[in-house]
């Protein structure tokens, strides 16, 4: 498959809200487009981090451009998500979010212990390393968006990406 445009599309529960408010400049197409809508229609933003600073549209953000484009990657702070902690890594190239991944995820000791009781140490199922393959898509159990959004915002803050 050729190069894919990866965008974090929508997330229910306020992730979009977060991206919108502090988020990408003009080139991060989808997100800013939908976010304009979100703030324009005055929908309630559920993410706690989103509500305190309502901003105008992201378009105005891009016109008042910052002196130098933001580049780099950062890992957000680990955030509790109910069964443990997750941290999100974001990559920004030329003021555009190019990748967002979950960089670490730990489960609570109590929950891990609970899992271990169910699981015999040696898996008969195969363990394949994802690194170095050309797999773009991964199917897996659903994680929730709130911790994801919070950690993502902290990663963006580390890059001074407004």
């Amino acid at each position: 498959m050729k190069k894919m445009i990866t965008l974090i599309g929508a997330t229910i529960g306020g992730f979009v809200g977060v991206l919108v408010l502090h988020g990408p400049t003009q080139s991060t197409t989808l997100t800013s487009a939908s976010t304009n809508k979100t703030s324009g229609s005055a929908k309630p933003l559920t993410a706690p981090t989103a509500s305190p600073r309502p901003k105008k549209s992201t378009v105005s953000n891009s016109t008042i451009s910052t002196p130098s484009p933001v580049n780099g990657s950062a890992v957000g702070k680990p955030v509790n998500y109910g069964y443990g902690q997750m941290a999100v890594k974001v990559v920004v190239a030329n003021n555009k979010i190019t990748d967002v991944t979950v960089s670490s995820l730990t489960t609570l000791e109590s929950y891990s212990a609970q899992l271990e009781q169910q699981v015999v140490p040696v898996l008969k199922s195969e363990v394949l390393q994802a690194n170095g393959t050309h797999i773009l898509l991964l199917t897996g159990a659903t994680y929730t968006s709130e911790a994801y959004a919070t950690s993502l915002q902290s990663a963006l803050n580390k890059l001074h990406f407004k």
Partner: protein
Amino acid sequence: MGTVFDLFADESDLGIEAINAAFEHACNELHELDDRFSTYKPHSELSRFRCGEIDSPSALLDEVIELSSRACGMSRGYFDPWAMPGGFDPTGLVKGWAIDRVAKIFRSFGITIGAVNGGGDIAVINPVGQKVGVQHPLDRVAMCGVVWVESAIATSGLYERGNHLRNPFGGDVAAISATVVGAELVFCDVMATALAVGGKEVLYLLEQVNDTEGFFIDGHGSMYKTSGMSFCDP
């Protein structure tokens, strides 16, 4: 729906503006569906329906009720939105259905190569299909297999959100991870949930459904799969 959606489209396929328009449309659709079907929003149509405040459901809610009924039958009650605490709760079906709808939007905008990934449930848009890795339930940076997907794949498991699954028949949940590949994501999603809950019994059901395959990994790390379930090289 409480999760994160990733949208993919091949940029050589269409202009960036058409892709942006499709993505914007997709986001609007997801927000609208979330507003309508969230059980966390007290004024959503679904919440009001659950409280008995809705006499005539919208066409969309009607469709979800109808799909829920089919899914309940297909899974022989292992997926049963009417058996949930607090009344009718089709949440396990709405996400897959919403992703199917977004994939339709993509196609209507002319996207021929792309994907919609909603919290690990994926609709693939590609004339020849595409590889999808299945996350390992015990090692999140590893995979337990790679599957060639022509249309849809869903995974249900206990490892990200803890024990949120429930066996309507009162027994234990059979699997720590269950994956189903098929034509429509809505039914893959439902059957993956059913497979995680029911294990071998649901695997036998899947065996009888054409063009739908699946596998699960139990608490001992053993993998069980339908006879037609095949894996490809990473």
